[in-house]
């Protein structure tokens, strides 16, 4: 918490002139925004606005066409300098490095390890914090056994935190849908992120489950983790987010508090242009 207060004037994440082109399509067009430590920021927009593309660039799954992303004052994504550099794989996306630097993500369509238990799923998040290799596995040294025990203990802590302990040894695919979403968040938290990015976490949840999720995300934020949220559920976004960035056709059209955004003419137009449910 103290750390958060110290760094609050500096953005945790800064997206500058971010652009992604797929052939002739401008999926994301010179988008700028900042994310401050300890806040919950919502990224919204109509279908096909480019939210998920921005998200994939932040988490390292795509590399930007132009522009850059800095995280903790360090550049984590930049457009490839030249075609030659790209050929050599210099800017090949390496999502695991982004995760190791402290940005964890969930997926819009749940991507759990379906045939592994809930516990094993969460243990995946701890992989990069631990280091036993081939030799330690073969000799099963004291340090290796201690490490294994600590992995299990921490994974269990995250299961408890998300209220999933009853499912410890249950296969992920057998969990109810809402709990699968929570398990995905638990797994992301196990990577010990500074920034948690959630891609439509309320998709497919009923109203009650959504409310519980809102409370949970607040709780996560209160442990010092910054949250970036992409969401379709307007009610949830307005309720949860402190600041909202609105994109449409790849461009940022508004930014502000929920109240400000709701009054914004450009936003109203963008949303009335499509059939809203």
């Amino acid at each position, binding site marked *: 918490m103290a750390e958060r207060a110290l760094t609050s004037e500096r953005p945790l994440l800064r997206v500058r002139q971010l652009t992604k082109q797929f052939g002739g399509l401008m999926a994301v067009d010179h988008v700028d925004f900042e994310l401050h430590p300890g806040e919950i920021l919502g990224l919204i927009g109509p279908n096909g606005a480019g939210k998920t593309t921005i998200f994939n660039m932040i988490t390292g*799954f795509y590399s930007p066409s132009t522009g850059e992303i800095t995280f903790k004052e360090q550049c984590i994504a930049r457009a490839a300098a030249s075609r030659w550099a790209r050929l050599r794989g210099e800017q090949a996306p390496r999502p695991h490095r982004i995760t190791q630097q402290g940005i964890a993500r969930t997926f819009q369509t749940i991507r*759990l390890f379906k045939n592994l238990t809930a516990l094993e799923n969460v243990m*995946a998040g701890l992989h990069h914090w631990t280091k036993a290799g*081939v030799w330690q*596995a073969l000799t*099963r040294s004291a340090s290796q056994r201690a490490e294994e025990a600590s992995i299990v203990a921490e994974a269990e802590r995250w299961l408890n935190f998300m209220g999933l302990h009853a499912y410890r040894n249950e296969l992920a695919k*057998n969990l109810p849908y809402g709990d699968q979403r929570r398990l995905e968040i638990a*797994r992301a938290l196990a*990577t010990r992120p500074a920034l948690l990015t959630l891609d439509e976490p309320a998709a497919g949840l009923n109203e009650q489950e959504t409310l519980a999720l809102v409370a949970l995300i607040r709780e996560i934020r209160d442990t010092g983790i910054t949250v970036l949220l992409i969401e379709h559920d307007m009610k949830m976004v307005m309720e949860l987010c402190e600041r909202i960035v609105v994109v449409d056709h790849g461009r940022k059209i508004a930014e502000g508090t929920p109240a400000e955004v709701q009054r914004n003419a450009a936003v109203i137009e963008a949303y009335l242009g499509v059939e809203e449910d």
Partner: protein
Amino acid sequence: MNLSWLSRFRERPWLWQSGLILFAILLPLPLGDYYRTVAWRTVLYIMLGLSLNLIVGYAGLFQLGHAAFYALGAYTAAILNLQLGIPLFWTFPASILVAALFGFLITRPILHLRGDYLAIVTIAFGEVVRLALVNNILGITGGANGLSGIARPRLLGLEFRQPIYHYYLVLFFLLITIFAMRRLENSRLGRAWLYVREDETAAEAMGINTTQVKLLAFVLGSGWAGLAGALYAARITVISPDLARFMESVVMFCIVVLGGTGSIPGVFIGALGMVTLPELFRPLKDWRDAWLGVTMVVMMIARPEGLWPSRRVQLELQESEAPHG
């Protein structure tokens, strides 16, 4: 069948494990040299199957050129023995290292390929190795005739001439292999392979360097095949580029798939079906390829997860069906 008997075995795995080991030790005693050699071949292919299982079973990567590393191990042992006069047992570490090194060099550039694309490239690399051996590369591989006159290994003044010695030699290494595989399976690295096999994208998002993890499976599996190759050279003393034949790779692949991908007992069953049976029905040996083809087709239709699958692979293949039971 008495059920309490079965459950007693289940609770105390060491009971049937030590029984199995005892059986393996006593097995060759009543047999003649021919059947001892069949037993030796079976154990050798179980080892090869387990080494490939690391790549295909645990990490879920297609490798259809595995025989290349088997051949590299055999050639390394033979060349060191023939050119430098190094006793065969001392060449084993070099065989492992050379095969592992080639595993690294060959697979590093193709790791980003997935599924069938990877399979095609590994077939090509297997052929490249075989042709390099045929073409007497560097003048040390002996061309199409291969190498002969490898000195028999000696241990404590004992010359390994009889088939039974070689049987116990491979059995010893097989036990080490099984021990190592089980430990790898239940480790941080073993889990990482599971994550990659289940969902590579999600594994990457968890901060797992999937490239490194896959590479490690290839390197370890290749090195292990290299050891099997050296054991082959020690027994047969004559080696040829045929060791790297595509058909060899196919047999190894079938051992893994027939028995059950990712499962150690499965590899045993696979080796019995692919190596021992054709050898025992030697008069019908010409039918082996047909047997192989028919078995694989029937298996893929009737039991795609193999005869003795690992619990998890079974789950993966039954994805669309009802929850477990």
